[in-house]
């Protein structure tokens, strides 16, 4: 039975969706602009007798997530840009130990302390592994409060399915804005399948001891382990690519944008239509795995691409890699917490098309 539509902040919708997905333990540390998420968890996890801990730092929080994930529980942490940087070592460990968990970054503008306004400058960090070593993990970018809830819910499933962290990369606008949302139905954590590899609950079984570790001191063993993980990555790339297209067939120029900036571009597409100009929008939903195949197909059709980001240009590299010289890839970015307007993005597109 579907819930009725509620008006919620993105931050709260993410929190509620996590609870409904069966999140048994949340660990976080305050940071703007995601504080409503932590506050929501504080209240509602405690009410449900699940685990909520305000950790002493982001470093502690990610390692609590690591610990909880090691026991097989669904678990989550959230933060914003500087806090995510502090979690990089822990994320690398979680990937190295193949631990499923959900990470939420409600990104702000950087670098450094920067500002508290929305930003998309954490794309590289999220998709390339800001931590050390060879690894990737799933990264999903919602464009709305509804999608923030849906993708968070799904992230728990994907994390478990592929035994890797899944990240929600939102930004301050997605976190702070209110929209209508129909929440996914609640699952009882106890109803979720048990994880045979996890630590704990050995009593009464005849299994060997389980060891959760990312340490392999024999190079050849570590290499084999990495290669096995990359095979899994290949499967993820085949199975989990998500994107949305608007008017890409007719378009002369296709915007490529995710999250907040994709909505700005959508506005520009609509405005252009009224002017008789055909623009399109290609919106990656999964930033990793990146929808490179479909972009390459569009490139082969001779489309031009204009990547629009709230950064100095990060995803544009993935677009270039996907297109591989087969089409022109341009970039338009605002940063520092400035959200581009539909008008300026349209103007840029028209400038490029000379229309």
């Amino acid at each position, binding site marked *: 039975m579907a819930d009725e539509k509620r*008006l919620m902040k993105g931050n709260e919708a993410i929190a509620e969706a996590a609870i409904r997905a069966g999140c048994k333990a949340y660990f976080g540390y305050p940071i703007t602009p995601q504080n409503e998420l932590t506050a929501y968890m504080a209240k509602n996890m405690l009410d449900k007798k699940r685990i909520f801990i305000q950790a002493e730092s982001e470093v502690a929080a990610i390692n609590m997530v690591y610990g909880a994930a090691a026991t097989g529980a669904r678990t989550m942490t959230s933060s914003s840009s500087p806090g995510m940087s502090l979690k990089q070592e822990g994320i690398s460990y979680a990937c190295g130990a193949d631990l499923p968990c959900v990470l939420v970054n409600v990104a702000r503008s950087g670098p450094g302390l920067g500002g508290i306004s929305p930003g998309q400058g954490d794309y590289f960090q999220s998709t390339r592994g800001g931590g050390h070593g060879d690894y990737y993990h799933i990264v999903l970018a919602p464009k709305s409060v509804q999608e923030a809830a849906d993708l968070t819910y799904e992230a728990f499933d994907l994390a478990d399915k592929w035994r890797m962290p899944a990240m929600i990369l939102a930004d301050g*606008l997605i976190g702070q804005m*209110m929209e209508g949302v129909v929440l996914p139905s609640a699952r009882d954590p106890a109803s979720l399948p048990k994880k045979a590899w996890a630590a704990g609950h050995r009593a009464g079984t005849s299994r060997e001891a389980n060891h959760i570790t990312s340490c392999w001191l024999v190079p050849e063993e570590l290499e084999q382990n990495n290669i096995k993980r990359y095979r899994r990555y290949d499967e993820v790339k085949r199975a989990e690519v998500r994107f949305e297209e608007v008017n890409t067939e007719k378009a002369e120029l296709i915007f490529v944008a995710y999250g907040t900036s994709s*909505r*700005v571009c*959508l506005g520009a597409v609509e405005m252009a239509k009224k002017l008789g100009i055909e623009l399109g929008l290609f919106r990656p939903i999964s930033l990793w795995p990146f929808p490179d195949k479909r972009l390459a197909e569009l490139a082969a059709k001779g489309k031009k691409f204009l990547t629009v980001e709230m950064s100095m240009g990060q995803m544009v590299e993935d677009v270039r890699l996907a297109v591989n010289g087969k089409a022109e890839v341009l970039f338009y970015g605002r940063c520092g917490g400035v959200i581009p*307007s539909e008008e300026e993005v349209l103007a840029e597109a028209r400038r490029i098309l000379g229309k």
Partner: protein
Amino acid sequence: MTEKTFMAGFGGQGVISLGMLWVYCAMKEGLEVTFFPFYGAEKRGGIARASVIVSDREIASPLVTSPDSCIVMNMDSLPICEEVAKQGGVMIINSSLVKNGTMRADVKAIEVACNDIAEKIGDPKIANMVMMGALSKVTGAVTLGKLEAVLKTFFPESKHKFIPLNMAAIEAGRAAV
């Protein structure tokens, strides 16, 4: 139909509640909505602003950069609204606090003495409700037909007794334009 509204006012004037109730009602009327509040760099005591959109279609950018309607709750908000107001758009001004109207001749300026009206009804704090009534009447985007029900979920039980007052403010706002 898409109505993009930019709202601005002093911290305590209830601009945020105004925006939230507006979109809440719109949602109950079956519309798509987005509400994005933001503050200036000053965290404390600055101007509260909100981008508010209601529409019968999917909403593109939640940021209102070219508002169909502006709401100016106090003097300091006027220049901000004047900067963004769309040519031909509506600007509803709280004339209790903003005395000399707007210099933008290309917008349809409407003055509502929200504080005075609210005070007359019995509570200066519901000036924002007066404004919402006016906004509903002027734009026609949201009928506010579900407001009473919405207020019941919005306010805690203990405050339900204030609902009639709020409804009266809405009516007064409507009547004022």
